[in-house]
């Protein structure tokens, strides 16, 4: 049976030689993962969709720069993280000159999960999501990327380093700093539960 990695490698080779269906396969294999990453980095659906489009567009442009011995998924995540960071930086600059925007129409991180029923749980759940979002926003871009990749995407610290172009020890310290900041931000709320 052909692994995902092998089928990606074969698709990359075909896409490089001009086969549009091969690039389509790569897009179809990886879209959901890149959306998930982008949503956790940006915090809303529309931005995440933009990041997905930009990631594949850049990947297409840079396909010749992809090293065959590398892992395509790691390479694509790296582009995805950079696109998300670019968007966050632009949004930050834009927000400095704009009034706060209307809430996102999609179900963003501030909105309640409809499965959570009792009013108390619902209120608490909304508050937790709000604080998690704020805590993530306060992380530096590198800390945020490292935390999302380690905590949500389940990558090993070594893989996080590969995606972010960092030494493993630097990736580890970004994760440590991120977790400490998350803890400082969220611990008061979590303690109130006890």
């Amino acid at each position, binding site marked *: 049976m052909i692994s995902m990695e092998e089928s990606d490698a074969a698709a990359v080779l075909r896409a490089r030689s001009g086969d549009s269906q091969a690039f389509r396969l790569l897009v179809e294999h990886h879209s959901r993962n890149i959306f998930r990453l982008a949503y956790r980095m940006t915090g809303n659906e529309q931005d995440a969709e933009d990041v997905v489009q930009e990631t594949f567009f850049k990947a*297409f442009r840079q396909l*010749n720069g992809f090293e065959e011995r590398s892992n395509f998924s790691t390479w694509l995540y790296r*582009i995805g993280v950079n696109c998300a960071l670019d968007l966050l930086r632009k949004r930050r600059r834009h927000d400095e000159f704009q009034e706060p925007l209307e809430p996102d129409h999609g179900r963003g991180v501030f909105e309640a999960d409809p499965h959570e029923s009792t009013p108390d749980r619902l209120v608490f759940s909304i508050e937790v999501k709000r604080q998690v979002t704020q805590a993530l926003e306060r992380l530096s871009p590198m800390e945020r990327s490292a935390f999302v990749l380690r905590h949500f995407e389940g990558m090993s610290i070594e893989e996080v380093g590969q995606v972010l172009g960092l030494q493993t020890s630097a990736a580890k310290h970004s994760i440590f700093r991120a977790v400490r900041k*998350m803890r400082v931000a969220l611990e008061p709320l979590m303690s109130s539960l006890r």
Partner: protein
Amino acid sequence: MKHLNEDQLILHYYGEAPDPAAIESHLFSCADCRAGFEGLRRVLAAANALQVPERRESYGSEVWQRLRPRLSERRRWDWKPTFHVSRWAWASLITAMLVAAFFLGRFWPRAEIPVAKLPPGQVRERILLASVADHLESSQRVLMEVVNASGNGSVDISQQQASAEDLVAANRLYRQSAERAGEAGMAGVLEELERILLELAHSSSQLTSGELNEIRRRIDTQGILFKVRVIGDRVRERQKAAARELARRNL
């Protein structure tokens, strides 16, 4: 065993502690550390409240349908992807291919042909050496611009990034040709250069001062600018020697 610090607890939570059994054993016997670990686990579990909206099975196809018109604008699919880049990159690639042909020609045995029909090898060598030297100079310029970049808060390196993207493909051809021709020194420097160019091409176009310092540090640590300059000087020397040889023969 003394108390566990927060970093050890974080590594243990993510299953990456070097000695998990020792940490488990300590947690079992130490109430303070156990409480610390529980606090960490509660906080990190709360982070999972950030749920991602579900995407349909057909999501990949929908992404492709939105993406495809943008790709078509950039180039027609019946062209090789190699040729979607700028005119500058076209020129680089063509010269890179000429260099590849030159090195391969030196390396592979060839059939005897009448002397009168041989191409003027020295002229060709001069041109090809000049294109390698130009490539090294362009790369050096891009790296210098990144090293000397400055800005308030964030630094825009989008221009250098675009140049790096263009240089990567040509660099790869030069490197492969140098490897085939047994020019190990040049191949090694080109490989290091390629890694830096790729990193620039893949990095964010807006760098924080921390990120920029990290790239500068790597450029400095590897001494890549110095190596590129030395190799570039050597290529220029060979180019001059080839020119002198050509002039001598024409006398």
